[in-house]
Structures are given as C-alpha cells and as structure tokens.
C-alpha cells in the first residue's frame, strides 16, 4: 500500500446503518446532495468531488422522504452517531423550537469528541425582527451554526456576499458557500445524478468537511480546538469584523489546517515490515 498522507487517510469504514438499523436509502435527495458536498469521491462520473473526499460518511436517517420528522428522532440520531464513531455531525435541518432532550443529545455528542454543524436557516431575515424564527439546533451551544455566502450584486456574482436567503443571527458562527452548489443527487430523483441547490443546508456541509480535514490532519484535536481553528482562521467577509451572516467569517480550510499543528511525529522508527492491520471499526 502506498503511503497515505494524513489528509488522505480514510476514516472509519462501514457506517451504513440507520438510526433504526434498517434503511438509509435517500428518497428525497437532500441528504445525498449534502453527502456529496462533504465526501464525493474524486474522479467519479458526476464530476463532483467532495470537500473532504477522504472522509467516510455515516448515514443516519432521521427524517422522512418528505423531508420532515420529529426532533426526538434528530436527538436519537445525534446520540447514535456519537456512539458509533462519528467525529463530525452535519445537521442540514432545523426547527423553530428547541428542547432539553435535543440539548442533552448535543452535549452527549460534544463531550464525546464530536463537532456538530447545523444550518443557520433559510429565513432571509434577521433573528430578532418580527417573524424571524431562531433555527434549532443551529442556535444550540456547542453547535456551529453556518450561514451562506454567495449572491448576485447587480449583475455580478460576489462569492463573499451574504446570500439573501440566509438567516442572520447572533448565533451564526461561520459562513460557507451555499449558493448554486453542484453536488450528487439520487439517480431516481435526477437522471444525471447531480443537481444544483442553494441554501444554508448546502453551506453547512462545506464547514463540516473543513472540520473533517482539520481532524484528519490532527485526530487528537478536541471539538473546541477544531472550532477554534475554523473560526480563528475564517476569512472576514460581508462586513468588517464579526457579523450575523457569517459569524467569524467564511471558512478557509487551508488556513485552518495551518492553525492546527499536526501531531508530533513518533520518535520510534517506522516498521519495515508489512503495515499493521487496520483498526477494527468502532
């Protein structure tokens, strides 16, 4: 086996189990689009490459084919993912209400070393204004809320402009591309296997993938350190300083890697025989 750089090391494999232990087929398409943004393999026929193609996706089904469900299932899915080896959880979903059980699930995951990302919402408004709802779990503590950048300003496209649809709020931590995102789609929903979508749902997996890259660079980082690396290196956008669209700014994965030094190299000589077998799946 050729030497793999830390960035190319595959994570845990065989995570194809749903919350219920049964079906994880995507009958909607939203999840496949999000998953493709995170980890679509390079060189596939769709010409879509995920932002962290070396990562392995653990699919956890919490919503129905119509795209709706219950927060209890979301909470159970978070707990299940955390208990089954997830390092990063992407939550491109939301509700206008929160509860203590969701909070317990988030805290369980976070204290088990999981970094959680959630969509800021597509309200196109500012939380605090009349009729503008807070989006949960994005507003939870220990969840990184991701807003969307990319918008037309006049006739010119500005990739750093705040998307008109994104929900602006004090709880937003980061911004990421969410406008016109080209990614994978189920073949039974789009014959080409690809589709273009816009929304904070599409911005969130970019940030989640950036976290996966940072973690692959140094798996020993804690969630707080990963978040600090992402927010501390985010590129200032929209307005000078923190803002309610992108929080600390737009993610910059390369800078985040630089901000997270790799684990100190081992002092012992590497083995000269065959590499050890891969670790058993957790």
């Amino acid at each position, binding site marked *: 086996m050729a030497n793999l750089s830390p960035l190319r090391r595959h994570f845990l494999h065989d995570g194809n189990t749903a919350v219920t232990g049964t079906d994880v087929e995507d009958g909607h398409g939203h999840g496949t689009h999000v998953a493709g943004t995170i980890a679509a393999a*390079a060189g596939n026929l769709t010409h879509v490459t995920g932002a962290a193609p070396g990562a392995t996706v653990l699919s956890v089904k919490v919503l129905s084919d119509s*795209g709706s469900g*219950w927060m209890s299932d979301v909470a159970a899915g978070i707990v299940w993912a955390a208990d089954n080896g*997830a390092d990063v959880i992407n939550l491109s979903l939301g509700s206008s209400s929160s509860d*203590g*059980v969701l909070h*317990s699930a988030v805290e369980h995951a976070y204290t088990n070393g999981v970094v959680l990302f959630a969509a800021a919402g597509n309200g196109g408004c500012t939380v605090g204004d009349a009729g503008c709802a807070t989006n949960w779990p994005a507003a939870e503590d220990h969840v990184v809320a991701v807003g969307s950048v990319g918008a037309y300003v006049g006739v010119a496209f*500005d990739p750093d402009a705040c998307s008109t649809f994104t929900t602006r709020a004090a709880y937003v931590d980061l911004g990421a591309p969410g406008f016109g995102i080209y990614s994978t789609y189920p073949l039974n929903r789009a014959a080409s296997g690809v589709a273009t979508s816009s929304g904070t*749902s599409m911005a969130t997996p970019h940030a989640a993938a950036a976290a996966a890259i940072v973690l692959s660079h140094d798996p020993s980082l804690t969630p707080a350190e990963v978040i600090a690396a992402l927010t501390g290196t985010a590129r200032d956008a929209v307005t000078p300083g923190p803002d309610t669209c992108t929080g600390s700014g737009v993610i910059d994965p390369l800078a985040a890697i630089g901000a997270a030094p790799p684990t100190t190299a081992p002092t012992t000589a590497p083995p000269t025989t065959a590499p050890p077998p891969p670790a058993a799946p957790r």
Partner: protein
Amino acid sequence: MWERSCPAHRPSAPAAAAADSSEVMRRWQGSWRRRWATVAAAAALVGAPLAVVGPARAALADPAADQDALVDADVAPAIAQADHQSAQLVFAHRDAGGAVTISTATVDSAAEGHAVLAVAGASGTLEAVSVDSPVTLVPDAPIEPDPGPGGPGGDVSADAVSNDFYRSLQWALDTIPFEDAADRRRQRCHRGRARHRRGHRPPRSGGQPVAAAPALPA
C-alpha cells in the same frame, strides 16, 4: 425540576402508584415501539444528520445533570392538555456509564402523562423531558433572480462558488487532480457560451492555483 415549575401538576400518590402498573408500562413501551416502527418504515433518508466518521474521541464528561432543569417549560402545559389532545413526550436518560438513550411516550390523558413522567423520574437516570416538536430539512432556498443565462443557481454560480472552493481545498489536499480534461473542455465551452450570450464572463473569486500546492507536513 418539573414539580417546582408547575406544582399544581405534581404527580399524585395514586398516579405514582399507577406508574407501577403494567398498563402504564405497556402503553409507554408500546408507543415507544410504534415510534421506532414508524421511523423504520420510512423508505428513505433525507440525509441529515450526516456523520463523518473518524478516530478522534474525547473523554466523556461528567454526566451529572441539573435536576431542576429536567423538564421543559412546555411539558406541563402539554400534559395538562393531554385530555383533549394527546402529547408525545421525549425522554433523555443517561446511565451511570454515560450512555444516553432517547425514548418517547405518547400520552392520551393528563393522568397518564403524570404517571409516565413519574415512571421516568423514578428511574434515576432521567436527564431531560420535552414535548416532541416537528423538524424539517432546511429546504432549498429561494434565491434572487439570476441576471445571466443559465437560470437561478445554475452552472454560472456553481462555477463561481463551488469550483473555487474546491480548488482551494485541492491546494490543501495536493493529491487528487481537481479537473480532468473533460472538465476543462466543458468549462471552456461553458465560459465561451456565457461570453457569447451576454458579453461578459462572471467574475472569479480568489481561488488558489492548483499547481502552487505547498508541501504539507508529513
């Protein structure tokens, strides 16, 4: 704690006794099974949360919970209204080992709600109780009209946003050719068509040069 936030609905002694009855337990467990059966019957996953799996783990934190904050403020009103409209309660239990279990119970009366709550509280592992709430994926966003060809959210914006982002990542990854020849031909054709149609090309953001990849630490 729930009793403190709503003393008028403190579980009565008869209700607590009823909590031990097999009928209450049967209904609770039955509704729990129905919920999971419903989830299991759903044909496909909308996809979130998606969990990227990796090796890093942190030590489990102290699972101690503030007993006064166990019950959401909306639980007591929901139970009080359960005689008229059933309520689905959600419980988070954390055992001594730190394992968290999420379960639900549908209650059809206030008395049943009190009984179920008493059973959950008596377990000694209850961490939180809530009323279940609907959640949806964050849908495709409405976007402003695209002044150029290709329609809203079309290839023009994808080219301007996503590809630059991926090129930046490619600089970091330095392993996988981002574009193959077909990609380059397709993009040249696309840009050519765009120039032909509207006399200009969309501005490019600050993507990093693919060839300028720095050496990454081993």
